[in-house]
């Protein structure tokens, strides 16, 4: 009934949001104070949520905001406040093997880049000749996105859904028991 939302200024928003996300990510891993890191992470999460909206995944975007930004990050902030940080702020921030870590991460980045480059040019499907990363041709109706995800969650992914619920239950119990004062 409603017309599909037509994306506006897509490139602009994409670069804005991804820029925010990456800057946030950089801040997360560089700040001394964990609270600042957490705030930066929130920025990243919200930016990623915006990217989901651009990808016609409003439900995932909503879940991202509610669960991540509203739930998990509050938990993080809570914990950061509980464990005192005055000492850790003054200490060395990186461990002794950080060059190795950065090197490994750089190798990983190189891997990604090379795969993407290859995927764009070489790795096309030999049979159909289609590239590995086709441009999105089939448009998803985002007006019924939530309904469809619901149908899939309760249909195809029934087991996974149930197991996820069980996982959450176990996590709750585990977290409660571990965070208890006296075990």
């Amino acid at each position: 009934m409603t017309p599909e939302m037509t994306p506006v200024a897509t490139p602009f928003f994409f670069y804005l949001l991804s820029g925010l996300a990456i800057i946030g990510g950089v801040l997360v891993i560089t700040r001394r104070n964990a609270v600042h890191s957490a705030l930066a992470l929130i920025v990243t999460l919200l930016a990623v949520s915006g990217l989901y909206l651009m990808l016609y995944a409003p439900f995932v975007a909503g879940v991202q905001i509610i669960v991540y930004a509203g739930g998990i990050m509050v938990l993080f902030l809570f914990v950061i406040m509980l464990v005192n940080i005055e000492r850790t702020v003054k200490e060395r921030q990186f461990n002794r093997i950080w060059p190795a870590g950065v090197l490994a991460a750089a190798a990983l980045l190189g891997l990604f880049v090379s795969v993407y480059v290859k995927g764009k040019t070489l790795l096309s499907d030999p049979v159909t000749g289609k590239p590995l990363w086709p441009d999105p041709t089939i448009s998803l109706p985002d007006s019924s996105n939530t309904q469809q995800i619901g149908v899939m969650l309760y249909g195809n992914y029934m087991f996974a859904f149930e197991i996820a619920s069980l996982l959450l239950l176990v996590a709750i119990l585990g977290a409660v028991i571990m965070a208890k004062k006296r075990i």
Partner: protein
Amino acid sequence: MAEITTLHYLVVAAALFVLGVIGVLTRRNVVIVLMSIELILNAVNLNLVAFSRMWGNLHGQVFSVFIVVDAAAEAAVGLGILIAFFRNKETINVDEIDLLKW
């Protein structure tokens, strides 16, 4: 600015992933390590959703919902362990968490 393709999203996700990996591998503060793991998971989610858009079905989005669930569980348990640990050792530095070494 050209049109935004799937690859663009993948590149962003790769960047976030690598940032997360750096955080996990180098930071000493456990809380920040955990946050870096959230970054990694987010990068994966972004990939999944981008692929979901690319193929025009919703499986990727459903999976990303599951990953969010997983992240919530991971954060809860991880922080629980962290608090329990902090209570005993009064530190939240990864390289001081090496009791099993002995």
